[in-house]
């Protein structure tokens, strides 16, 4: 299945970048401003801000109401089960990341969790591993590239996917194309399955971010800049594998909003 993101968003992003132009580089006689400009590493800031506004509009009209309805309509155990299943389905991506980063301890945890949660945990609905204190963690190709020494590259905001960087976006693409679930044959049932999985991931992620997003919108004088900074910090934290135990497995990078995904409220 060709992902929606690659088919439509990719070209749209490029066109927007070209249309909106680039951020102005500060003059060379202001070294502090120049350093800040480099640290932000957001050469397409005007275009990114435009896309951020597009995303805000879509989010307020569609995504946020859906996420709120999802929380209101489904009881917590059901949402917990869905989040656990989605996390379990991300095993191939996480395990690949563990192995490519040469982290055998984490790879063993990921594999053990998958086996136990898929069987005793009834197809991943129950996170049995957590009860034995083997907590899930996030891993994705963006993180692996970072561990291999690839710099994060410029910042980019993609509507519906959220904040990302050149490196994380490439990693996200690799994750999609190497996911076994998008490789095993084709057919209508598989398509429906994949769209359901992607759709549920979006709703589940947005539901987890209801409070953090409210908070940013309410308290930030510049939500775009706040999100940009929070995303980078959160990614650095994930790359160093220092997530605190207890959080559920966050969706693979690219879609990460720079926030940890917790147990449902």
């Amino acid at each position, binding site marked *: 299945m060709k992902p929606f993101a690659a088919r439509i968003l990719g070209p749209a992003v490029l066109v927007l970048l070209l249309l909106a132009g680039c951020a102005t580089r500060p003059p060379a006689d202001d070294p502090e401003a120049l350093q800040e400009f480099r640290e932000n590493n957001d050469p397409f800031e005007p275009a990114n801000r435009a896309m951020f506004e597009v995303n805000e509009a879509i989010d307020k009209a569609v995504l946020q109401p859906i996420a709120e309805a999802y929380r209101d309509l489904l009881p917590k155990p059901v949402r917990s089960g869905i989040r656990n299943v989605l996390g379990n389905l991300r095993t191939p991506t996480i395990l690949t990341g563990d192995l490519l980063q040469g982290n055998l301890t984490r790879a063993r945890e990921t594999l053990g969790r998958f086996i136990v949660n898929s069987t005793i945990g009834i197809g991943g609905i129950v996170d049995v591993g957590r009860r034995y204190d083997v907590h899930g963690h996030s891993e994705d190709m963006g993180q692996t590239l970072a561990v291999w020494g690839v710099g994060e590259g410029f910042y980019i905001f993609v509507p519906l996917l959220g904040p990302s960087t050149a490196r994380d976006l490439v990693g996200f693409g690799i994750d999609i194309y190497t996911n076994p679930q998008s490789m095993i044959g084709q057919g209508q049932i598989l398509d429906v399955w994949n769209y359901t999985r992607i759709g549920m991931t979006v709703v589940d992620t947005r539901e987890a971010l209801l409070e953090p997003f409210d908070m940013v919108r309410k308290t930030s*004088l*510049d939500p775009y*800049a706040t999100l*940009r*900074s929070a995303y980078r910090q959160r990614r650095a*934290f994930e790359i160093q594998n220092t*997530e*605190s135990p*207890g959080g559920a497995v966050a969706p693979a990078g690219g879609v990460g909003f720079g926030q940890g995904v*917790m147990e449902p409220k």
Partner: protein
Amino acid sequence: MARVLMSRRLLLTGFAGLASFPARAQSMDISRATAFVNKAGQDLVTAINDPRLNLTQRRDKVASILRTAIDIEGTGRFILGRYVRQASPAELQDYLKLFDEIIIRNLSARFGEYRGVKFSLGRSQQRTEEDALVSTLIERPNSPSFTLDWRVAEINGQPRVVDVIAEGTSLRLTTRSEYAAVIQRNNGRVASLLDAMRGQIAQLAAREGG
């Protein structure tokens, strides 16, 4: 290797930030920092869960505890960053006053809602020569628990909180980006940040109903 590079870069960034201000912070003793966070945290939890206080009283109590626990001036200066020197003395004075009000209002509104909150110390670790990072676990009824790390520095002989870090995201770094963006987008005028801060305080006050 990359992990080492990454942490070194983070460290360097931290030092660069500190270097631009007078070195008021002395080295921080980890057990002293932990005891300080524990005391401030227990005081906060007691105030938040006190059944005799109404919402306004609770907020006031929380605000007064926060005022003694946080190094508001130092944090405010850190967040304003290089614009500290570009601001006029009057602007800087206004900024620190507005920053004090915003941070206290935001934090006490947030903590004030945490009825039934429980707080416990997590693993502690010394981070740099300058300050200590104390990790805590926040638990609320019917809510997922989360960790909060408190960066504590020795300010004029007293331990004070200089940053709060939630799941890897530092409040002072995020706020520094936010404020810098506001100034940059208004032709580098510090006064425009002050206007935006005044607007935000008015909004916060309207939401709190007073």
